Structure formats: structure tokens, C-alpha cells
């Protein structure tokens, strides 16, 4: 019986240790929930001077995007009041603001520099004219390509390619024997994964999610053309296992040198340029996201933003924090502390006027053009009743996108034909819209 007794003793000691670790006295403290993207991790690391200057203690909750979203939504919708600052995106902000879950952030003071914010980003975080979340960093999407491979093949990437051209390049560069695949695209099901990309592709082909009467349009010829194109392109010239590749997996593939082209978020550029994370750091070129029959909605805009929930019990400290973390001074702080390549992009005009940033980040003008050219209120060729390019700005879209994403993955894996898949998807969306009383 010697062992169990020692076991218990060790357990008790550890418990005592854990308990003492768990309760330290708190000055004014705020709980900040954020995603584990590289830029937020830098924010976490740079925050001690802010804490020292203000006397505010920050408790960090850093979680993977999907987990964070469900965690924060549950808490805010049930009035749990666990968080003082939450990290949300352009999709959630207007929806949550409409429910009265967020405190307005339009009055952080004149020194905040509201006019410095890029208009399309500011607009995507507003409900009406009121700003409900302040942008931490913003991204658009564009085409990455390998300059060395294009050179070898004697090809030139135009500044604004079409999907027809992209398909032609993919065919010529596809070389699986040497571990190079013509194109990498998102295939992992999810409203923020394959559906984000596919929505821009559908837009490029002239399609839309809903007509003005909220009737789903998934069986339209445009959707059919777009999905057929996607399945053919990716099944023929894509890497194996495309149905489980999301943004992260594709970024790893591109960084390992397995992709000749990749159409995805601009936010990956800074990291692909970093030779510690990437084998192709010196061989990357950029072009706009491809178009086809229209230019509208071919590249997305997404902002990660900080907001203060209405249920926050330390709203004043929380507002101080979001003001600091999204200010122009903070961007300079990152640039000087960690290098300008990783400064939070896409939020302020002053960033793109800064010579230090432009010198360090050759992709910066592409990103700025992409973000400025996007108009989320006119996301498609034909008129639509919704805002949002790679999403539809209604609460139901997360569920719809998740389910349609699965059907698209089934078409990509060859389980379902394209027309069957679109019929299934159409009936899923019709059901959801009927249940939510958009259509009879």
C-alpha cells in the first residue's frame, strides 16, 4: 500500500500548487478573447508596456478560430459576461450589433484617427453609420504564384488574370512527379474555408447566392459553370487530398514548394516571405484574384476586429485596450519591434504611406489595391439583397455555408456529380431559408 499513499500525497501537493497558481490578487483586469493567428500573438507579446502604463491586467484567452467563435457566441448570447474584449470578424459585427450585443466604438476620441481607417474595412464593421468594432488587421484575397516555375516554363502572369488563363497555366505547370501541383485551392468543408473561396469564384462567373426575393440560385447556369470549373481544375491539376486542405494546409503546401499557384488570403504573404517558415521565400509573385465574366466580388475582404460586448463589466478599461491595440502607434510599435513585414496590414492609410513598411513589404501595394477595390455592398454582377462577398451577411449563413461546403467537397471527391450536388445544395438552402421565414 506504499505506492498509493505516495500517489495521494503527490496529488495533494499538486492540488495545493494549482490552487495557489489560480488565485493571485487582481487590480482592474480585463479578459481578452482572441484567435491564435500570428498577428494576435504579437499583440499578446507586446501588451506588457500597455499594462504597466495603465495599471490594467489582461487575462488572455487565445483559441483556434472555430473554437473561439463558438465560445464567444455562446457566452454573449446567453449573457455570460466572461469577456471584456472579443475578436470578431466583418461577418459577425453587423449581426451582433443588431442584437445589441456590442457597445458602439465611434467615440474613442479625435486622436484615434477614424478618417485614417480604410473606408471599405470601416464600412464592413459598421451597422448603419455606427462603428461597432475597430479593425485589428484586414485582408483581401489574391493570386500567389512561383516566379521561378513561370520563368522556366516561359510563362508570364498578367496583373489581372482570368480563370481561363489560370486553368491554362495550371495545365502547363502541373508536374506531380516532381511534387509540384498546378494549383492549390481550398477544399476543406466549412463556411470560412472552401465556401469563402468558392463564393468569389461563383461571383467571378456571374453567379450569386440569392436573388432580390431571397430565392437561392444554386441551380443557376452560373453556379454550374463555376462548380464544374472548380472540380475539373482541382481534381486534374490540384494536389491529392484537396478535400481536406483549408487555408492552413494549402499555406503549408505552398511554403513547402508543392504549389505553382494559390489563390487565397493576402494575410499569408508576410509569412511566405519569411525564410524561417517557407522554402520559397524568394520566389513568390502576386497578381489580382482572377476574374471571368465580371470583376465584382472576385476578391474578398475580411477584417479581424476588436469589440467590447455589452455584457462587459470593465467597459472603460476594455475601450482603452482596443484603442491602443488598433491605433497607428501600435502598428509602428510592431514594425519597430518585430519588423515591418509583420505589421498588422490593411487597416490604415498611414500604414501604406509609411516608407519603412513599403520597403519591407513588397506585397503591400497589391494588398492595398485589393482592399480598396472591394465593394462589399456590390458583391456580384446581378443585384442581391445582402452584403458580403465570401459570405452572406445573415445569421443563417454559417449553417448554410457549413452544409453546402460538405456537398461541394462531395462533388470535389467525385462522390456526387456537379448537377446532383447543386440540386442537393439548393434544397438545403431552400429549407434553411424557409425555416427562417425569408421565403414562404
Amino acid at each position, binding site marked *: 500500500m506504499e505506492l498509493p499513499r505516495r500517489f495521494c500525497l503527490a496529488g495533494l501537493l499538486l492540488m495545493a500548487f494549482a490552487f495557489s497558481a489560480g488565485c493571485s490578487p487582481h487590480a482592474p483586469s480585463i479578459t481578452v478573447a482572441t484567435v491564435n493567428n500570428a498577428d494576435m500573438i504579437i499583440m499578446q507579446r507586446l501588451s506588457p508596456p500597455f499594462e504597466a502604463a495603465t495599471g490594467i491586467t489582461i487575462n488572455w484567452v487565445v483559441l483556434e478560430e472555430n473554437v473561439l467563435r463558438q465560445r464567444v457566441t455562446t457566452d454573449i448570447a446567453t449573457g455570460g459576461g466572461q469577456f471584456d474584449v472579443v475578436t470578431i470578424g466583418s461577418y459577425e459585427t453587423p449581426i451582433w450589433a443588431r442584437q445589441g450585443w456590442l457597445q458602439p466604438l465611434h467615440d474613442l476620441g479625435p486622436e484615434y484617427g477614424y478618417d485614417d481607417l480604410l473606408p471599405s474595412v470601416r464600412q464592413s464593421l459598421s451597422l448603419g453609420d455606427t462603428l461597432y468594432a475597430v479593425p485589428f488587421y484586414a485582408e483581401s484575397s489574391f493570386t500567389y504564384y512561383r516566379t521561378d516555375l513561370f520563368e522556366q516554363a516561359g510563362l508570364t502572369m498578367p496583373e489581372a488574370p482570368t480563370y481561363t488563363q489560370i486553368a491554362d497555366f495550371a495545365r502547363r505547370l502541373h508536374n506531380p512527379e516532381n511534387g509540384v501541383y498546378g494549383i492549390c485551392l481550398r477544399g476543406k468543408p466549412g463556411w470560412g474555408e472552401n465556401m469563402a473561396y468558392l463564393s468569389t469564384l461563383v461571383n467571378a462567373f456571374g453567379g450569386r447566392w440569392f436573388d432580390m426575393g431571397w430565392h437561392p440560385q444554386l441551380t443557376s447556369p452560373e453556379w454550374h459553370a463555376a462548380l464544374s470549373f472548380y472540380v475539373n481544375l482541382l481534381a486534374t491539376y490540384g494536389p*491529392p487530398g484537396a478535400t481536406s486542405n483549408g487555408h492552413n494546409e494549402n499555406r503549408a503546401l505552398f511554403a513547402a514548394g508543392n504549389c505553382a499557384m494559390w489563390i487565397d488570403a493576402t494575410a499569408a504573404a508576410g509569412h511566405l516571405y519569411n525564410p524561417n517558415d517557407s522554402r520559397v521565400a524568394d520566389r513568390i509573385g502576386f497578381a489580382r484574384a482572377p476574374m471571368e465574366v465580371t470583376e465584382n466580388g472576385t476578391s474578398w475582404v475580411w477584417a479581424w476586429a476588436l469589440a467590447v460586448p455589452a455584457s462587459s463589466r470593465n467597459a472603460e478599461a476594455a475601450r482603452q485596450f482596443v484603442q491602443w491595440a488598433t491605433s497607428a502607434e501600435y502598428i509602428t510599435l510592431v514594425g519597430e519591434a518585430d519588423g515591418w513585414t509583420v505589421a498588422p496590414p490593411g487597416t490604415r492609410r498611414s500604414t501604406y504611406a509609411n516608407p519603412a513598411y513599403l520597403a519591407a513589404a513588397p506585397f503591400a501595394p497589391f494588398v492595398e489595391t485589393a482592399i480598396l477595390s472591394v465593394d462589399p455592398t456590390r458583391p456580384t454582377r446581378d443585384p442581391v439583397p445582402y452584403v458580403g462577398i465570401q459570405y452572406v451577411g445573415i445569421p443563417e449563413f454559417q449553417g448554410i455555408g457549413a452544409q453546402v461546403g460538405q456537398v461541394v467537397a462531395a462533388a470535389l471527391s467525385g462522390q456526387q456529380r456537379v448537377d446532383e450536388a447543386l440540386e442537393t445544395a439548393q434544397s438545403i438552402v431552400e429549407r434553411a431559408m424557409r425555416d427562417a421565414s425569408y421565403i414562404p
Partner: protein
Amino acid sequence: MTPRTRLGVLPGDWRLLSPAVGALALWMVLPLAMTLWFSFQRYNLLTPQLRGFAGAANYATLVSDPALWASIANTVVLVGSVLVISIIAGLLVAAIFDEPFSGRRMARLFVVAPFFVMPTVGALIWKNLLMHPVNGLFAAAARGLGMPAVDWFTDWPMASIVLIVAWQWTPFAFLIFLTAMQSIDPSVREAALLDGADWRDRFIHLVLPHLRRAIGIVAMVEAIFLLTVFAEILVTTGGGPGLATTNLAFFIYIKALLQYDVGIASAAGVIAILLANGIAFFFMRTVSRSIDV
């Protein structure tokens, strides 16, 4: 317990049972009552202004959803195949580890280790480091042998999930079977050996009957956890392609945490409870008899 007198609580006293039963009842009844209540409500977290009594509408919506039936079928396939694989593999591995060999203690820990790994971590290892069709270890091995790399999650989605989950649960079965085997009376073994019974005879006629109760317990404990397998699916296939790997737990996840539809999710939860009770009834008729309740 309040044993102040010499006798205190008598050994057969029902009060010994009541704290556990009471706590469990409370734990079951409160959430269950709330779930039942919500299942008749129209309640989406994101549109709280549309709240109200929904009648049986949530159930009607669910029952007419083809994804529900597909997910129930997938649940049965997943639970069934992992149960069969882990019990058979567990028996075989335990039979080998029942024999003495060099370094057995260390080897035993190696076999048990997968059970100690968090499901998310285990699934991430399999997906990114092993089964990845471009940079995974399996793909490299296949290429080394001159074979094409298998695209696991596209071509064999359910089989891949079963493989990962079976890897996690076989060690559990192994551990319990091994212990049970080692408790077989040595004199009975000697007798069997003297009778000239070979390895297979001894396994079938001596070991298996002895393991009846252990098999029952393994089947039951595993079934409980396999019914709610979720993390492995989320990080690998996301329920797809199509509905190929959507089980009931993942289906409810989509309803509850992507659509935030508390009404539908609660109704699906009630259906899951009914299914679980069906399985519990099945256990009551078969397994619990074998473990001699």
C-alpha cells in the same frame, strides 16, 4: 454518512447509494428538462427576437432532414466497426503480451500510450504527419515502394476515421483484456497444457470464456465514448466529403454551434438520448447478462 453510533450506517442501507443516485439524477434531470423545454421552442441564439413556442416543428424539421438519417447510419457504422476492430485487435495483442518476452513492460507502455493522447492531438498527428497524401509518412513509404500514395480522407473517409479512433481505443481494450488474462488460474493453464491443448484451443476454450465479463465491460465503456466521437471528425474531414463522415454528434454540433439553433439542437439531443437508450436496452439484454449483473 453519519456513523456516530457503534452501528452507524448499516451495510445494506440505501443511504449509501443515495448520494450517487441523487447527484446523477439531478445532473440528468436538470439539463434533460431544459433540453426538452428548448426542443419545443423556436430559439436561435443569433435571432433571439424570434423566440416562441414551436410545437413539434423542430422535430418535424429534423425528421425530414436526410442528413439526420445519414448521420445515424454513420454513427452505427463507426461505433460498430471500432468496437469489432478494437476488441479483436485488443484480444490478439493481449494474447501476445500474455507471453513473457524481453522488454515487455516498456513495450506494454508503448501499446497503451495512444489512449493517453488527447483526441484532437491524435487526429492532428494522423492527418498532418502520417496520412497527408503529399508530405505524410505513409505517402513517403508508398512512394518508396513504388506505389501511388493513398488519398486517405478523400477516397476512404470513414475508414480513415475508424482507423484513427480504433488506434485510440484498442489500447484500452488491450489493457483490460491483458489483466483479465493474467488472472487466469495458473493451475488451470497447466492442466490444459498437459491435456495437449494447442495455442488456439486454449485461447478459444479457456481464455475467451474467462474474458466474457471483460469483453462486456470494454464493449460498454467504448460504446459510450464512441457514440459521441467528435474531435477526430472536426479536425480531419469536417464531416465530409458530403455526409460521408457526419455522425450524430457532428450533426448536432453543426446545428448547435454553427447554426446556433438551440431548438433544433435540443430536439436532435432528445433523439440522441432515445437512440442511446435503445442501445442501453440492447446492453441490458445482452452485455449486462454476460457480465453477470
